[in-house]
């Protein structure tokens, strides 16, 4: 038989490693085999080392830029300085207080945005009149920069947490609503018909058929919504510094105001780490959906 003949040989077990939920369009994806449990730690490591490598590369490029001194040290902070700063910060109450305050606001703001986004999204997707009236407004609102809302926020809520929440919600809810609308719009008509035929009407049709069917798109919208809410929050925290409530947004701005390069980078690292953490949560949700729907067998 010639060389380009397809030959599939496998002995027990060592099927292609699905690599902790990572999908690839090679035989490994299309033909997953059994994955023994005892490989857990090995696959954890398999998922970790590329991240560490990427991190190492970034640090290396950065350090080289510092070594070559193509910019003076006050213009370009070194990794050592930045991490020293981070380490120092991490020892202060102020730092943890900032992180907690901001995380609390982020979660609350995100939840509010999700609530508003879902209601608006489903309402617009469902009610013809609303869609015609405000459908195209949603993307337009999304493009409005946070600072444009500051006067209105202060007008409505004075210098309170609510003003910050207002900025966050108005920044993130449209994005989530858009995810919901996109999801609802792309529900396969066959599933809709099937749902209607088996007796799902009105709210039930939404709850039992349309919502689960649009879950992938909704999760994607939530992810984008998180990014919007976080960025709006960073802006909103500049709006009001409530007495005794330090925050990451304020820290970021102060570091910038003071041209404190190591401090700025230290805060950026904190933001990145939180972002990575949140992405992990979304990653789990995403993979759970994919596994249940049989889109990956990992």
């Amino acid at each position, binding site marked *: 038989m010639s060389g380009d003949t397809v030959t599939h040989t496998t002995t027990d077990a060592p099927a292609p490693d699905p690599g902790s939920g990572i999908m690839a369009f090679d035989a490994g994806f299309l033909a997953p085999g059994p994955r023994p449990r005892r490989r857990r730690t090995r696959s954890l490591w398999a998922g970790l080392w590329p991240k560490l490598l990427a991190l190492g590369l970034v640090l290396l490029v950065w350090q080289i830029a510092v070594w070559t001194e193509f910019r003076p040290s006050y213009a370009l902070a070194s990794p050592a300085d930045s991490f020293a700063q981070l380490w120092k910060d991490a020892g202060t109450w102020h730092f943890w207080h900032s992180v907690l305050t901001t995380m609390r606001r982020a979660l609350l703001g995100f939840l509010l945005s999700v609530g508003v986004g879902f209601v608006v999204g489903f309402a617009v997707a469902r009610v013809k009149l609303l869609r015609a009236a405000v459908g195209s407004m949603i993307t337009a609102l999304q493009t409005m920069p946070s600072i444009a809302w500051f006067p209105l926020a202060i007008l409505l809520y004075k210098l309170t947490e609510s003003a910050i929440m207002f900025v966050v919600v108005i920044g993130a809810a449209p994005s989530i609503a858009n995810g919901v609308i996109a999801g609802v719009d792309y529900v396969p008509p*066959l599933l809709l*018909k099937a*749902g209607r*035929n*088996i007796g*799902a009407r009105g709210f039930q049709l939404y709850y*039992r058929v349309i919502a689960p069917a649009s879950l992938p798109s909704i999760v994607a919208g939530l992810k984008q919504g998180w990014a919007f809410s976080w960025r709006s929050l960073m802006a909103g925290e500049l709006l009001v510094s409530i007495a005794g409530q330090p925050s990451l947004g304020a820290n970021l701005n102060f570091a910038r105001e003071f041209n404190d390069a190591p401090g700025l980078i230290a805060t950026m690292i904190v933001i990145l780490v939180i972002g990575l953490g949140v992405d992990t949560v979304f990653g789990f949700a995403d993979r759970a*959906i994919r596994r249940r729907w049989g889109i990956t067998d990992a």
Partner: protein
Amino acid sequence: MISIREVSRTFGHGPEAVTALDRLSLDVSPGEFVCIVGASGCGKSTLLSLVAGLDTPSSGIIEAGPNPALMFQEPALFPWLTVAGNVGLPLKLRKVPRPAREARVAELLATVNLSDFAGKRPHELSGGMRQRVALARTLALDSPVLLMDEPFGALDAMTRDLLHDELERITQERGLTVLFVTHNVREAARLGDRIVLLSSRPGRLKWQGSVDIPRPRRIDSPEVSALAAEVTDRLREEVAQHVG
């Protein structure tokens, strides 16, 4: 129970338009089992969709009982639910209490011989298994009117024979009205009280005849074979006008 009067359905506009059904009239009396045969693309699925109220005719009037249960040509299972979840959903929507629901689901899954697969998801099933889950889900609707679009198309002969018996038992017991689309003329002769033949595009009523073979019938009985041969001849005649 089902009354179809001068119903037409055209898809698209202008020169591209396809007329799937053309002034079709058909009545199905309560408890009757009507089999529809016709060439591929003659409008059978369109007709069932109209009767189920999932599509609106371009012209004409359709009356059907409340909530006719439609078994689609494709399985149309919900990928996010398990087999049991799919079969149980119509019951859940009717607010059947949990113990009753679970018992009913188990019974239906036993009927379609899939008890072992209650916890699997649709993507883990074979084509024929999916079709059987869809059948169980349709039966779970407990509707007095059943619309079935090639419900046994993906099944092997044996499983099909068993399900023929089951379906016959259920329809007789509950006096269901059935509109049953099939490509298998023997199947039509085995199950139907009446066989309706649609013409090729546009779908018109070409011929119909009642099946006078006494029940219980067997699919390989000489009477069924003879009737099937007769209908096949008529069908062949019809298709021959269009193809080739």
